[in-house]
């Protein structure tokens, strides 16, 4: 009886495996199609709407006392974020209550030198009334989350290597 049960179980498992492989290939194909449909040449780069939503959430969290959740929730690397946040606090630079406006958005290509990103060019005002322009990045992590490489957008700028970059 035990042998028969195992055989049935084995057959079921094989069928399940075939189904899973099929499902996996289907999902993979779907993900590729979705990435291609967003108009970008870089699969996985967040859409303009996703990047703007991240900026909106970053701005909301930046208004909280001590920016408690900004680095944990928005930043791709919380350590980097906390370091830059410390620099901003030391320089007494804080964001105003108004969310920065988006001037344009671009895609930084996914290359050997950098992770593909949606880069928003933004203009905003600081708490002391001064205005600034800069860039805010949005990337899709390997875990599928949308995060920023410069979550402290009111103080840090963002840079990519231009496509014309050539090794020295």
């Amino acid at each position, binding site marked *: 009886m035990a042998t028969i049960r195992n055989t049935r*179980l084995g057959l079921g*498992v094989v069928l*399940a*495996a075939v189904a*899973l*492989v099929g499902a*996996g*290939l289907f999902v*993979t194909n779907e993900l590729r199609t979705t990435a291609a449909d967003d108009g970008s040449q870089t699969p996985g780069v967040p859409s303009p709407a996703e990047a703007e939503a991240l900026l909106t959430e970053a701005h909301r969290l930046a208004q909280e006392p001590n920016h408690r959740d900004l680095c944990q929730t928005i930043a*791709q*690397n919380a*350590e*980097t974020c906390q*370091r*830059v946040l410390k*620099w901003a606090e030391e*320089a007494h630079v804080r964001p105003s209550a108004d969310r920065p406006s988006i001037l344009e958005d671009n895609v*930084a290509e996914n290359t*050997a*030198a*950098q*992770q593909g*990103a949606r880069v928003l060019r933004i203009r905003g005002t600081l708490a002391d009334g001064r205005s*600034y322009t*800069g860039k805010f*990045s949005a*990337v899709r992590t*390997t875990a599928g989350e949308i995060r920023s*490489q*410069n979550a402290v957008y009111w*103080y*840090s*700028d*963002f*840079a*990519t*290597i231009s496509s014309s*970059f050539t*090794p*020295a």
Partner: protein
Amino acid sequence: MTIRSKLAYLLAATAMLTGLMHDLASASDTGATNLVVRGIMPATESQLIDEFVNRVHDKWDASIERDDYRVIRELNSVLVVPKGVEPLHVQSNGVDMFQISGAVNPPAGEVTTKEDAVWNRPVCLARHNLANPVFPSVIEAWADACYAAGYIQYPGQSGWDAVFKQYQTCATTGNGLNYHLKQCTMAFGPVGNGGGINFLDWNDWSPKSTTYMNPCSQLNLAVSVAGFGAEHAISLCETLNPVKGERPLDFQANWAGDAPTKHHRETGDLISVHNALLSGIPYQVYYGGMEIGF
């Protein structure tokens, strides 16, 4: 073996198979295998390739042809790369890095005396991912870096004094072959050899000597110019090795150690140069320098 564990194995195998097919397709049609994974092992070239092939087999149960790979030796580093692929190089002291240009200007308008450095907006750089050379969608390690430039003002100043700080966090991901992080490097450098660089001189730099910390501790960096200064701190584990060049701005911060998979390591430095002219100072930032091994 329970049903649950059988299903777990099947799920894992399915995921690997799907990922493997995707990886192999990507590798063949994007040419994305021009990334290298550095291994630091005192072994023959044949042993190095065998080690790599075996690890790929053990991890993904996939077979790759050892004849498709070659070994490149550079100074103290060893690269295992697919044949026909040339590593993308920006080299500084034997470390592959990527470069980006910047410029810092002297203080504008009325001069006011300040004790502390005045920093411009820092720049954070796009994450550099180090991919597995065989499976390009598998990220083995990453580096996040930021840098900032500024100036120091003081009474009686002639020309002006620029300050630069940078730091970088590196880590292996454990998504692939459970590499350890062996090196994490970032650097500043001058632009070219002529023009304005002739009017630059070193003021100060930090760290000044190779520093070792165990357990991990905060390393305070500081530069002083005519009694005024700037400070910067990083979290240091194991060894930070500064490499200062003769040319002003030529400075590399090289973390070296053996960090377990997924453990983060930080490198950074703080430097200052004097410009005899009231002109801007162009500079280069080098980042993403990593070595991973077993």
